[in-house]
């Protein structure tokens, strides 16, 4: 394969159950096989994911920064123009670091969908909302909740949420937000932990919003590069992600709240929290690997040990999901699939129509594609960590290569369990 380097002969072959995939990673490849169809599928789905993601990150920040502690946030999914125009820090002419060559404001396909929805009719916003003909923000909130619930996944973000410094900042914001509202201020006095906990949740809204603000332009740019004929294979697409991870690794993760004209810094940028350590890695851990069983998909008997006692052992993320039952109505992965369905590029629509039941099972087909694409993103994270913490793939020191091997094997140990879909995505007929 042209984009892979020759595998090393300086150390003996791996004996791991996924040895073939480990050797591929050592040659600079991805966990996803390098085939033109895989490349077409993953890029197509990245584009379809980026459009709703452009809504998710804007709304997550809107909720964290403006809706804040609104006790009846009925309109939290109604993005004001200010947040649709909010310039993305990684796209457009005003970017801190321009990743996507496109515009910094909300994507045109998103704006069109927000206006007309699936019905393709311009109706009042409230009607689209109640008819559920809109971007499924509930998916983004489910991801945020997974991060909030799993909490301790490396980085310093979660620890900070329990410091006196954070509580004092929350306290100032809570008092300002409920100024002149004796009922809410009384509640805060009686049950001080209640609003702190709500603030912690809102800090995770901000965290995830800042994380996805980066990913949307990354995926848009990948789609544009592919359309221009720029990626030779799957490893190229993975390496673009690896470079992107490094480029924005130092982006600050913070939580600012705006009450009137005043800005309250619940988590100031000066805390030194970074995109890589406090957002990206916890996100991958919480959402790709762990999450929690989705209600309405399958029953588990916790007493019989069907759900791990240790949260670290949770394995309900996209890398393990059985896409078919997970495709039931109303649950988070289906909400995302439905969102992506609206923005599929034509080549992916044509491909789905050629396979399985065509249009009838398109949600499942795109769910499987999404799973493939996330194995590629996870590969990029694994290769980025290898590059950051260990050694180059072409290192000539056998001791260094053995360290890389150990790292790759430890990562792939997580895919030995039967629920893992790593073996499935090796075959093109898995759809």
């Amino acid at each position, binding site marked *: 394969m042209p984009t892979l380097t020759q595998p090393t002969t300086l150390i003996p072959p791996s004996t791991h159950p996924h040895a073939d995939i480990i050797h591929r990673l050592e040659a600079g490849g991805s966990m996803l096989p390098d085939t033109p169809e895989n490349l077409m599928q993953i890029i197509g789905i990245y584009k379809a994911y980026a459009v709703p993601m452009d809504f998710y990150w804007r709304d997550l920040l809107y909720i964290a920064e403006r809706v804040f502690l609104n006790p009846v946030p009925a309109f939290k999914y109604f993005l004001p123009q200010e947040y649709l125009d909010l310039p993305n820090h990684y796209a457009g002419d005003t970017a801190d670091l321009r990743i996507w060559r496109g515009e910094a404001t909300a994507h045109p396909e998103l704006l069109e969908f927000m206006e007309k929805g699936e019905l393709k009719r311009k109706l009042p916003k409230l009607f689209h909302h109640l008819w559920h003909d809109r971007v499924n923000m509930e998916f983004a909130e489910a991801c945020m909740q997974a991060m909030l619930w799993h909490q301790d996944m*490396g980085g310093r973000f979660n620890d900070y949420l329990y410091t006196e410094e954070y509580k004092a900042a929350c306290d100032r914001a809570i008092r300002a937000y409920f100024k002149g509202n004796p009922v809410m201020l009384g509640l805060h006095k009686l049950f001080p932990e209640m609003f702190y906990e709500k603030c912690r949740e809102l800090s995770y809204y901000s965290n995830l919003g800042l994380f996805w603000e980066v990913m949307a332009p990354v995926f848009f740019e990948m789609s544009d590069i592919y359309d221009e004929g720029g990626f030779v294979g799957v490893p190229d697409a993975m390496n673009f992600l690896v470079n992107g991870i490094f480029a924005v690794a130092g982006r600050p993760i913070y939580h600012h709240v705006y009450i009137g004209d005043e800005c309250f810094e619940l988590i100031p*940028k000066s805390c030194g929290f970074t995109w890589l350590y406090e957002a990206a890695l916890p996100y991958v851990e919480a959402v790709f690997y762990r999450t929690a069983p989705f209600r309405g998909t399958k029953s588990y008997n916790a007493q019989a040990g069907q759900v791990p006692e240790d949260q670290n052992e949770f394995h309900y993320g996209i890398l393990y999901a059985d896409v078919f039952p997970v495709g039931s109505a109303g649950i988070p992965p289906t909400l995302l699939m439905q969102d992506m369905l609206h923005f599929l590029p034509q080549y992916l629509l044509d491909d789905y129509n050629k396979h399985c039941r065509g249009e009838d099972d398109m949600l499942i087909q795109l769910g499987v594609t999404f799973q493939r694409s996330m194995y590629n993103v996870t590969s990029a994270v694994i290769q980025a960590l290898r590059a950051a913490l260990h050694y180059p793939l072409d290192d000539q020191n056998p001791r260094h290569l053995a360290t890389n091997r150990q790292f790759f094997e430890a990562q792939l140990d997580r895919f030995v369990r039967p629920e893992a879909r790593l073996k499935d995505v090796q075959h093109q007929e898995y759809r």
Partner: protein
Amino acid sequence: MPTIVDIAVNNEGFSTLVAAVQAAGLVEALQSPGPFTVFAPNDAAFAKLPAGTVQTLVQNPPQLARILKFHVVAGKYTQDQLIALGTVDSLEGAPIPIDGPFDSDGSDGEGSFEVKNATVLAADIEADNGIIHVIDTVILMG
């Protein structure tokens, strides 16, 4: 004797590190009595990072300062002392593993030592307020 900052400024090959220390506002701290042990990545080490990495960090001084603090240890430790310790705590808070000594071919021997995934190119450079070990890779927490 010159301070750690003086040595970095007056020697070739550390212009990126000096610019980063200035951007992060750490010059004063590294000129204080200390003492400190500094693992100093040379320009080639910074050049190995993918495009944009340094730019993003320089735009965000607190985040840059955190990465730089991972290269600094409180106290003055020579190569022999570091190898004997096996691991030291950085000012960032995360531990830094130390391994070695190794020969130039990477096997156990009497030559250089390794700081996490970086190889030490020049060890035990004495400064007024500490000691510098030059490394070939920017080290990262984790």
